């Protein structure tokens, strides 16, 4: 049962990991993208749209489907969808210097609405009486396990039995951490988020960095949405099922102190906390809800601890949430 609990925690944690790593990249450029829940939602529905039409094109016959295409099409669709959301956000906040909080919240509302709209349309297109779309075949390709995982007992179950997006999430988090801390691009990006005027005077193209960080961050976050529908929900799309995972990803950014490596551990911890209520015997409905609060309680505790420690390295990027205009006097 413990093994099952750990696997479940990892499965639940992966969307959060994608979301928070994407948000970390964005926030390092000084942009607080509160649109991440919407971006993840759009990433999920874009993947669904892609795979829906691919399954239709193959006549819903699993024999005709190519494993590589079945994975690549939703993957690309999710990335394209979320990058478009990132572009909308960066155009509004970087180029037009709109208020980041308002833009982000609007984008979240927009993204969820868009997802539900297309979710509804696809349900109709698919015919039938169901209120959801089931793409179990594509999902099957996504959750293909490593062939030798079953033979290795508990070790195989915990470390090798996951869908490939889980491994991708960890790899992305490690790469992002490396780029941020060990490369020139990362140094420049952090400078843009800390002090755009400094970066500008040092000859860094601030606008370009902000655009790229926001769009790449959105793409990563969008994959979180895709992993949720394809691996966690077994390819079943139901409107609003994604829930508040986007907000949890943003909370995780704070929990992780803007460090992708901490986000890896944090996301699995959050996943475990979200899930703990199912594994503790004898909980009433009310106590279950209390348990679901745990991730947020932990985030608040972390915030309190950080503000007491006052280490400058643990603070958010100094220019987070503020627009930058060079000729402002």
């Amino acid at each position, binding site marked *: 049962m413990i093994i099952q609990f750990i696997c479940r925690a990892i499965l639940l944690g992966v969307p959060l990991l994608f979301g928070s790593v994407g948000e970390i990249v964005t926030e390092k450029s000084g942009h607080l993208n509160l649109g991440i829940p919407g971006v993840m939602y759009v990433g999920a529905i874009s993947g669904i749209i892609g795979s829906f039409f691919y399954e239709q094109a193959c006549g819903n016959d699993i024999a005709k489907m190519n494993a590589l295409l079945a994975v690549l099409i939703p993957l690309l669709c999710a990335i394209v969808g979320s990058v478009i959301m990132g572009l909308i956000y960066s155009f509004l906040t970087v180029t037009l210097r709109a208020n980041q909080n308002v833009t982000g919240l609007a984008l979240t509302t927009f993204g969820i609405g868009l997802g539900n709209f297309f979710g509804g349309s696809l349900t109709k297109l698919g015919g039938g009486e169901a209120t959801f779309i089931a793409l179990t075949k594509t999902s099957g390709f996504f959750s293909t396990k490593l062939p030798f995982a079953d033979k290795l007992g508990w070790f195989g179950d915990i470390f090798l039995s996951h869908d490939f997006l889980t491994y991708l999430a960890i790899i992305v988090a490690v790469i992002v951490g490396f780029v941020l801390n060990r490369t020139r691009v990362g140094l420049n990006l952090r400078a843009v988020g800390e002090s755009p005027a400094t*970066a500008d005077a*040092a000859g860094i193209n601030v606008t370009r960095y902000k655009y790229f960080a926001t769009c790449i961050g959105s793409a990563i976050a969008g994959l979180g949405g895709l992993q949720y529908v394809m691996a966690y929900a077994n390819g079943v799309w139901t409107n609003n099922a994604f829930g508040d995972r986007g907000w949890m990803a943003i909370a995780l950014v704070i929990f992780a102190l803007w460090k992708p490596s901490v986000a890896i551990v944090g996301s699995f911890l959050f996943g475990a906390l979200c899930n703990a209520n199912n594994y503790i015997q004898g909980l009433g409905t009310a106590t279950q809800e209390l348990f679901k609060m745990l991730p947020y309680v932990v985030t608040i505790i972390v915030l309190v601890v950080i503000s007491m420690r006052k280490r400058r390295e643990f603070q958010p990027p100094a220019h987070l949430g503020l627009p930058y205009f060079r000729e402002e006097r």
Partner: protein
Amino acid sequence: MTKQPAIELKNITKRFGAKVIANNNVSLTAYHGEVLSILGENGSGKTTLMNMISGIYFPDEGQIFVNGKEAVIASPKDAFGFKIGMIHQHFKLVDVFSAAENIVLGIDGGKYNLKKSTEEIKKISEQYGFDLDPEKKIYSMSVSEKQTVEIIKVLYRGADILILDEPTAVLTPQETAKLFDVLRKMRDDGKCIIIITHKLHEVLSLSDRVSVLRKGEYVGTVNTAETSESELTEMMVGKKIDLNIERSDPKDPQDRLVVKDLDCINRDGVAVLDSISFTARSGEILGIAGIAGSGQRELLEAIAGLQHISQGDILYNDPKSGKTENLRDKTPVQIRDLGVRLSFVPEDRLGMGLVANMDIVDNMMLRSYSKGRSAFLERKAPKDLAMKIIKDLEVVTPGASTPVRRLSGGNVQKVLVGREIAASPTVLMVAYPVRGLDINSSYMIYNLLNEQKEKGVAIIFVGEDLDVLLELCDRIMVIGSGKITGIEDARTVTKEQIGLLMTKTGEEE
């Protein structure tokens, strides 16, 4: 010895919006192997002009020649390409980065290797006699260390044309002397140094030639050896002005404000004031000197009742009743009614004293609104006061109903000080009252303070320009890291002594 021109500006014009002309038809030349001072008052367009050389702004008209060839400098990156480096007045450094990270920031190409860069930085430091730990984080650095990082940053990029914007504004006299030594070394190395300043004695001690700007226009260039302070002032201001501040001896000084063992702890739990004890006497100007952020602001706010005091007493001897009151237990309004006035000019001038969007009359009412008896506001008296201040202090404004944010810094300051003086205070506290003001306005403020002193007001003056403190004040109290490091007679003490006191506690810790 023929010198090669490093930078030539020809007929440069820069406008902000349709009306503001920051630079109008400016032409000047700077040579390799010399220090050129750009002298001018605040708002005369010095910084704007230099920002065009370093690529922050782009000129609307005119040409820039670098090493004899016409150059288009559209971005800071272009400027680096022409080996031009600028050290800004407000440091452009990332606080959470180390010195080395800041120095290599934004450099293209080459492998990212912080260790190798650190070695190179150490080499540059040794070459010019800097003292810098490349791994130290910026936020734990002193102001002069930060400046060192800025200078090494441009040297690391191989700049041989260096522009420094008011580099000494935040330095102690000792640090200034050290900086000037370094700059002279660079000049002898063949580099072209351009330094923006409005301090005349610095111009005279450091530079080879001086170019003067006034209200965005180029006035002329003179060789430093052939000029004098009064000639430069005349070029800068456009008319002859008397640079001496009259200082009368205090008449019948009485202890007005006695501060005893004052301790103050700020929000973060850090002690900002540590057993401060001093006496402010009537008819006397007490100057407060110290590196910015040493506790000056907290001290004044504590006296005005705006800062929580953890320990100590502030005793006020009321001249009317002769009674002694402890200000510690009083609210800001009670303190103000006793005649203790705070005129505070933080960096953001309109932060605490005036409301930027309200007009002059309404700002006058901020002090008097509670006096009216009827349900409606009494507007007549404040309006008369506003008109009087505008007339007496020569405030340049379209009228009394102009929002104060539209006024220039000097005029805003006149309105603020005028209002505080009109309430005939017995203690007047001013912090950086001339920051950002031109020479004329500065001297008007000094004269106002002197008038108040004659009237028997106890004045506490927090200043940054030591020359002014030495000329204006009767006694100078030096604060270092929240402690008093000395109280000296301003008539006998020297600038170097004050400078030593300013850094005293810093070195002990």
